[in-house]
């Protein structure tokens, strides 16, 4: 474990300014952490507002209409979606936990291109700043999907927002590139590809997706900008364009993007389940390959967002078929995690509760994904609350649960302090129960036929909407407990030992928090990452 001089990446360079010029991957991760958590707070408040508006139909007295009008509602839903997707969930795990732990897990001193890494953060912040600035210009109301021709005609700051997304995409590409090179070039002696922790595998697969898919989003958004600014006819039928073409382009990026969001989460889950059941992972190779498999197949399923868009029956059927194939590696991962619990020594600390919560919610998110992939059934469910519930089960129930679990798991390593496990577990209880209360009723609303992005609804849908809104308050309480836990941990947590949970991966074999150079002596790796014998 080396000497303990009290020096760490946190205090080796003094002054606040040194953080903004630091090339250290850990410091850059913390920069992302602060930024992303701020955006999460904003996006979360938007979500609470949406639910509050939907508490009752608009005609109800007092509680009926909270927001000024339909435009205000559409703006709030657009910012909620755009912020949560582009500024929270996509950068969340790779840019924060990936940046911090990918080099540590493979025994490297830093990422391959530290300067590029800092540049990525600045590029991200410029994009994010521009996105937030639209709020003070004319608030956009296109939904996070920017579907044409609405996005060409609406009189709001679409160009500005689209440029913002383009810039953030650039940052995402550079981060992905950095990680790919890091994994190929900077592994410690003995750290073969198949000795890499599964979190690193997941970040690596995600990086490939980021590099390959994001340019398509960039080009699409650029075309949209050209059309709005210069009247070049690409997507608007009035100019001879085709609005459905935009959907093809958009989902060609945005479907792989949902795996950019979920793969890193799956990586975290592998780390948590092995650590807190003190057991080697079941089916290491299967999990590693299934990450790559999901990444590859995810490029060919975009048309399942478009079964009723006017694409041909044959196209719909083909996309449905390929989507079924992507379900298989996902199912394999679920069974592998379950098998890892078998004959383990399971400790119900907060991170493990989040991991088990992930399995619970992702199981539901997964099976409802298969339901939606069935063409005939999707025709009814498409663009209803069933879809809203499904993707919140995978994105929030999946990714966000994993982020929370990952934060608590790595908190002692990142900050050198312990957090209070009891308040963290209380936070989990509220988030987990609140989540199900919020989103399960939305499956039923979808079955009943309630379309999404609705400012108002018919009386039949009232009861379930009320329940859903109450659930959103429980989630808010849960996150307040989480915030309290983090702040308490930072200000008055006990000093953390190097390896409080008895993990086997490399990041736990150095000090908490690590020094600027991560390891005092270059590690030499002689075994796999989960040798709990």
């Amino acid at each position, binding site marked *: 474990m080396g000497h303990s001089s009290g020096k760490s990446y946190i205090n080796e360079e003094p002054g606040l300014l040194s953080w903004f010029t630091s090339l250290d991957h850990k410091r850059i991760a913390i920069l992302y952490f602060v930024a992303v958590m701020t955006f999460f707070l904003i996006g979360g408040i938007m979500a609470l507002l949406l639910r509050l508006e939907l508490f009752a139909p608009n005609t109800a007295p007092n509680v009926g209409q909270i927001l000024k009008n*339909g435009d205000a509602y*559409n703006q709030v839903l657009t910012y909620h979606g755009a912020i949560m997707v582009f500024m929270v969930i996509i950068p969340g795990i790779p840019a924060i936990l990936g940046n911090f732990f990918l080099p540590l897990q493979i025994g490297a001193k830093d990422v391959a291109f530290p300067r590029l890494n800092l540049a990525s953060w600045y590029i991200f912040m410029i994009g994010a700043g521009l996105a937030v600035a639209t709020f003070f210009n004319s608030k956009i109301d296109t*939904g996070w999907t920017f*579907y044409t*021709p*609405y996005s060409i*005609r609406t009189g709001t700051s679409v160009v500005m927002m689209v440029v913002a997304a383009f810039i953030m995409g650039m940052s995402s590409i550079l981060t992905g590139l950095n990680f790919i090179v890091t994994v190929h070039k900077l592994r410690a002696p003995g750290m073969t590809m198949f000795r890499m922790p599964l979190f690193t595998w997941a970040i690596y697969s995600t990086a490939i997706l980021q590099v390959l898919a994001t340019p398509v989003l960039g080009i699409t958004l650029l075309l949209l900008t050209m059309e709005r600014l210069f009247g070049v006819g690409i997507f608007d*039928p*009035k100019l001879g364009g085709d*609005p*459905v073409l935009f959907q093809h382009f958009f989902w060609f990026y945005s479907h792989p993007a949902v795996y950019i969001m979920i793969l890193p989460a799956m990586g975290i889950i592998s780390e948590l389940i092995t650590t807190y*059941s*003190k*057991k*080697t992972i079941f089916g*290491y*190779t299967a999990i590693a390959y299934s990450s790559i498999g999901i990444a590859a197949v995810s490029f060919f399923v975009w048309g399942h967002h478009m079964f*009723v*868009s006017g694409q041909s029956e044959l196209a719909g*059927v083909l996309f*449905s078929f390929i989507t*079924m194939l992507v*379900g*298989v590696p996902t*199912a*394999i991962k679920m069974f592998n995690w*379950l*098998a890892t*619990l*078998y*004959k*383990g*020594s399971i400790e*119900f600390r907060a991170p493990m509760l989040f991991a*088990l919560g992930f399995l619970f919610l992702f*199981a*539901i998110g997964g*099976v409802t994904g*298969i*339901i939606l*992939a*069935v*063409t*005939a*059934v999707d*025709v*009814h469910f498409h*663009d*209803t609350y069933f879809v809203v519930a499904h993707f919140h089960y995978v994105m929030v129930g999946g990714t966000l649960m994993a982020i929370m679990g990952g934060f608590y798991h790595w908190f002692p390593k990142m900050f050198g302090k312990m957090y209070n496990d009891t308040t963290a577990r209380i936070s989990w209880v509220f988030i987990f129960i609140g989540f199900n209360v919020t989103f399960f009723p939305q499956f*039923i609303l979808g*079955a*009943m*036929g309630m*379309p999404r*992005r*609705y400012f*108002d609804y018919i009386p039949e849908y009232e*009861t379930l909407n009320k329940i859903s809104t109450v659930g959103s308050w429980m989630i808010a309480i849960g996150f307040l407990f989480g915030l309290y836990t983090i702040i308490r941990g930072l200000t008055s947590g006990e000093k953390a030992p190097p390896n409080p949970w008895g993990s086997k991966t490399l990041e736990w074999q150095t000090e908490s928090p690590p020094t600027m150079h991560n390891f005092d002596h270059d590690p030499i790796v002689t075994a796999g990452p989960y040798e*709990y*014998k």
Partner: protein
Amino acid sequence: MAIWTLLMNKAMAGDTFMPVQGTEIAKSVDNLYGFLVVVSFVSCAILIGGMIYFGVKYKRKSAHDKTAYITHDTRLEVLWSVIPLIIFLAVFAWGWVVFHDMRSMPADALEIQVTGKQWAWAAEYKNGVRSSDVVVPVHRNVKLVLAAEDVLHSFYIPSFRIKQDAVPGRYTTLWFNAEKLGEFHVFCAEYCGTSHSGMMTRLKVVSQEDFDKWLTSESEIGTLPLAERGKKYFQTRACASCHNVDNPSVKIGPSLFQKWGQQETMSDGSKVTIDENYVRESLMEPQAKIVSGFPKPSPMPSFQGQLSESELASLIEYIKSLK
């Protein structure tokens, strides 16, 4: 607790929460959906139940617990790859069969042209009748040819389990054969702006006899007095989704109640009298004079080239009558 009881009662009654089944297709979709729900429930029970069982059984007893070192089990892994694959392919194929029925347009169908515009649907029949309600005869193949005037919309009848986007610049189609008489909700399912959630209409399924009667009486609209004709157009052209006619409150645009002959202040401060020419201009060039306090640009669509002189005259006559 109340919700739990509600859910259990529904589940016991075999109710899947889906709306009334209005067609044969709806029944076949529900059968497939019912199967999917059962398989999903069993899969989740295995995963979540297994997780809870292992959690209880292998709860950590001491910090020195020894765990089994199991790296993989090829037989198990093949099993849990192949079984899901078979299930997925089976439901895929089943879905395809039903989807094919949905997408194969019958040759003998009654065709109705349905156009979506912000924020209303309009149905047009072969004999020229235009209606904001979609009226169809029972037990007859009906094919809707969908178009969109401005942005994307999606024609969704929950009770029939069918939905199809209306895309500007091309036609899309949808068919059904209604089995039940009555009124069914039609929603717009593709986000289309300010009043997206207000863009609904009714699908009225009537007997063939009533349908024929309705079609004839609607086509006789030309013989009605001007103001009454205007009232009809006010509905079918969706003016009513933004303008109130029986009270002065603002819906999306200004109310037209008791406005005729009044002076209004425009956004540039000028005063304008609401007369024939102002109404004509507002319909043809909605951005020209916007009443003060309303958004600029106005969300009001232009009706340039869409209204005949006689339709225009009857609308004006109707506005005059709003006292």
